[in-house]
């Protein structure tokens, strides 16, 4: 596992280094992301009846979840939109490899968006958000969509062209930030929805959302392992 985390860290560090070769683009990206998400957060606050800060946080964690969900099937893609045959030439089972890469990516995405949210909050409200509240909401959101991302990774391994379905799921995830109510017990089982509900009602226990997120993750990892076997049995790794 240590080796895999090192691999994941090497990839994230390389991607970050590549981004910082274009500092103007990097800084502009941070500023526009913060401004755009806070602006959308104001709209989310109106539709959900929450405070502006809570509405904005909902859009930030929704963006984090959508980013991770989008990224997981592309973690080993090397520019292509689906996992290439080469992903299977690394000396690790795909599930473990993608799991480690997704975990480190989630930390990167979560930390980045939490930092942007904290800075935006400081500029707009003159106050920093509660760190534990912010970290829990962001962590739950990212953890809850990881399994769904793995499922799409598995589907892309075998079927390749499932982008339209994945795009609809991404839109649905982001729309959850604007949902007027999520006041149902089963919402805890829905990726991201449970995290947004908790964000709006932090007195609720965290464990149901975390437990369902774990179930999704187990299902996603099982699907990746099953897809890896199917690809070898059918010889479709090379099919583009």
């Amino acid at each position, binding site marked *: 596992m240590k*080796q895999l985390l*090192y*691999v994941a860290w*090497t*990839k994230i560090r*390389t*991607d970050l*280094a*590549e981004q910082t*070769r274009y500092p103007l683009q990097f800084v502009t990206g941070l500023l526009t992301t913060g401004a755009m998400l806070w602006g959308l957060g104001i709209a989310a606050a109106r539709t959900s009846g929450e405070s502006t800060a809570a509405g904005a946080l909902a859009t930030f964690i929704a963006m984090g979840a959508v980013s991770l969900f989008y990224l997981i099937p592309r973690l080993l893609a*090397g*520019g*292509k939109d689906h996992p*290439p*045959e*080469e992903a*299977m*030439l*690394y*000396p*690790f*089972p795909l599930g473990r490899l993608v799991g480690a890469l997704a975990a480190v990516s989630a930390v990167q995405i979560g930390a980045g968006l939490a930092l942007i949210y904290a800075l935006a909050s400081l500029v707009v409200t003159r106050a920093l958000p509660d760190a534990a509240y912010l970290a829990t909401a962001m962590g739950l959101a990212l953890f809850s969509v990881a399994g769904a991302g793995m499922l799409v990774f598995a589907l892309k391994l*075998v*079927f390749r062209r499932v982008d339209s379905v994945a795009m609809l799921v991404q839109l649905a995830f982001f729309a959850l930030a604007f949902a007027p109510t999520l006041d149902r017990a089963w919402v805890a089982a829905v990726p991201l929805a449970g995290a947004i509900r908790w964000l709006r009602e932090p007195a609720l226990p965290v464990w149901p959302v975390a437990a369902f997120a774990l179930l999704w993750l187990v299902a996603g990892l099982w699907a990746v392992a099953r897809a890896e076997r199917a*690809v*070898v*049995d*059918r*010889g*479709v*790794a*090379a*099919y583009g």
Partner: protein
Amino acid sequence: MMKHEHAAGACVPLATEVACVQDARVAYRPPFAPAKTAIVTASLRLARGASLGIVGPNGAGKTTLLRVLAGLIRPVSGDVRVLGHDPARERHRLMQRTGVLLSGARHFPERWTVADALRFTAAFYGPAARARIPALVETFGLSGKEKEQITTLSLGNRQRLSLAAVFVHDPDLVLLDEPTLALDAATVEAFATFLRARLRQGKSAIVTSHDHAALGRLVDDVLVIENGITRVPERPLDSYARLVVLTDRPVTAHLPPEVQVVDDRLEMPNDPRLMARVLDRLDAEGVEVVEMRTRSGVEAVAAGSKGGKQ
């Protein structure tokens, strides 16, 4: 060297053998599409420290056979063992000791640098692989290009990077599909020297290439695959090597029977004494030699293979 006789049935693990394919039949079965048989029956054996070239026309099954050896496709029937593993079941373990290049390239994000790509690949194999990077950069002529982004590299330099990435963990076996694509003659020569040094260390290689002259520099033995069926040449590879002589006019002189004459082109076994006799005869007739070159056993065997239908 490769054993030419194939035992019937399953592969029997031998300490001296790195790869064995016995009567493998392979089909691609994509979802919602008809199945397509890529290999009807394939068998091969490769000993430790040996190199094997696979030749055949387009679509004959060369790359598919490498995919089988790399564990990317499970054969419908037959037996495959590589470095003691069943590749389809234990691919990730096999990849610890095997380097694979498919369709002539490794792919990395275009904005990464040469150093990024090699560091990322080495990260899978630990500190020893990382320590090997500078030597590989030197070997594959990438010195001074470490900080260049991949998007700016020429096709040849991308190929050098792909090859360097394959060797980063010092694999016991390499499976190379078209490794000489876009490489200049000097780089092919340097690569051949590098590969041969590895063979002397007991490492092994299986290589496919349509550049049969280059392949002849890289391998000691050859397997022909046609229409999805493998075939071992009838004689040792060296015996197929030929000397080709082009003259300034059609040759009418009486020459030894081993020499094939077609107008101004002579082809004969690569035997120095025979060559001396032929040159004497040509000189006596006043015929001048315009060009003389050798044709490796690989080239000769490959030229003898027929066209494929797949």
